């Protein structure tokens, strides 16, 4: 038996010599030594460096209060934008949808977000205009962001042109030229959670036939 140091991720715990599972889900392994349990929920636990979709709830002097489907509201500092100074603070109305990055996420504290990447550039973060946002589970969001591309997105991309933003907190935003494209993409993604790759492709073909 080789002596190996393994790293335990979320969902696993060490009790003296035994490792026990704390959450229901799939056990995943990543070389060289990381193990964790991946599960899908409807609520989100904020994690640093996650990209999420948030809705503005309120704006205070120093922060915007953002709802990211976590246990508490998150703070977005008013200066956390590219070239942000006290003079050009953006004005977001209640209900604006933003694409954000989680900077700090500690247990018991409100998470902190930012509209820039680690080097301070805007890089696609910020408000999303038009389109339609719907909620999914966290597992489906991860599948949509995985590489190689998820079968449902590939099948849709072959026939339709659209733009999506996926938040790891279980929110997806879709935009396209016509409303019926948006509706087809949204419904295809929502239906694809429990289907296998081949079933997803069949489901997408079925939906596309109905709108033609």
């Amino acid at each position, binding site marked *: 038996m080789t002596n190996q140091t393994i790293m335990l991720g979320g969902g696993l715990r060490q009790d003296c010599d035994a490792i026990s599972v704390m959450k229901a889900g799939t056990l995943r392994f990543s070389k060289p030594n990381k193990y964790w349990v991946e599960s899908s929920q409807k609520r989100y636990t904020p994690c640093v460096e996650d990209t999420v979709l948030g*809705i503005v*709830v309120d704006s205070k002097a120093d922060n915007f*209060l953002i*709802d990211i489907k*976590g*246990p*508490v*509201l998150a703070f977005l500092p008013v200066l956390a934008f590219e070239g942000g100074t006290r003079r050009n603070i953006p004005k977001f*109305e209640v*209900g*604006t*949808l933003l694409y954000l990055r989680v900077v700090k996420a500690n247990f018991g504290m409100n998470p902190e977000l930012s509209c820039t990447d680690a080097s301070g550039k805007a890089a696609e973060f910020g408000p*999303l*205009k*038009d*389109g*339609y*946002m719907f909620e999914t589970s966290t597992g489906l969001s991860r599948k949509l962001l995985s590489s190689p591309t998820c079968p449902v997105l590939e099948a849709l991309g072959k026939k339709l042109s659209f733009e999506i933003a996926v938040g790891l907190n279980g929110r997806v*935003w879709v935009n396209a030229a*016509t*409303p*019926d494209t*948006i*509706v*087809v993409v*949204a*419904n295809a993604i929502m239906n694809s959670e429990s289907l296998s790759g081949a079933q997803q492709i069949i489901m997408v073909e079925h939906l596309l036939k109905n709108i033609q």
Partner: protein
Amino acid sequence: MEGRLANAWRLTANDKSFIRTALLSEIRIDGRKPYEYRKIVVKFGREDGSSEVQLGQTRVMGIVTAQLVQPYRDRPKEGILSIFTEVSPMADPSFEPGHPGELAVELGRIIDRGLRESKAVDTESLCVLAGKFVWAIRIDLHILDNGGNLVDAANIAALAALLTFRRPECSLGGEDGQEVIVHPPEIREPLPLIVHHLPIAITFGFFSNDSILVIDPTHNEEAVMGGRMTTTVNANGDICAIQKAGGEGVPQRVIMQCLQLATAKAAGITKQIKEALYDILWYHLLRETTLETGELKCTTQKEL
């Protein structure tokens, strides 16, 4: 306070304008046409008088129970019908536990009016001893999941529960004929309620741009729509009740259009409820035949 803020369901500004824009091209976000209903599934529980209805994502459970009580003074020969609605935060984070909000009360009132005013349930047959004992039918509606349009789903649940409910048979006895004897279900088969017709509630949502009309709004559409109207009609075309509480004004021709649409939909939904009942009636038929051929040899004369 902040905890509740974090849990609240919110609609983005993008969604609000998208729902309106899509409706201009007659597209709804779940792919339905404006006058299309979501899929209705009617299920029954093991006990008589319990039903669960799913209308898309909305789920409501209906339970019917009966009790012998004294009738109202001004109606000594009629039974009593009452409806209670329970909403729990499990259905929607905006519902508060315990205290029923405006929505729950309005829901109960619409269904109550639809059943009572149209005399759908025959209350005179519920009289056992005039002035002394009548059956009080109690319908409990539990909202399990709010996916929009609770009124319609709750109405179907109430009707399905009423149609499968069986009340015990009772007869008068005793020395002066003033004693009521309630027969247990093993001795005498319980009786169904007399339901003359099925009043179906159909809810419409109005959107301010170009007076767009949708049937069976979902949760998102309800948050965006300008006004709503619930019409309760039956398959014969009789209007049992109409409810339009506030919201934006609509011209008269739109109301007439709604009533015509509602009558067409009511026929379809009535057929669906009756088909769902078919399986349950088979179960009752089997139960009756076993009762007749079973051990009923010793008919206790003192009870009958």
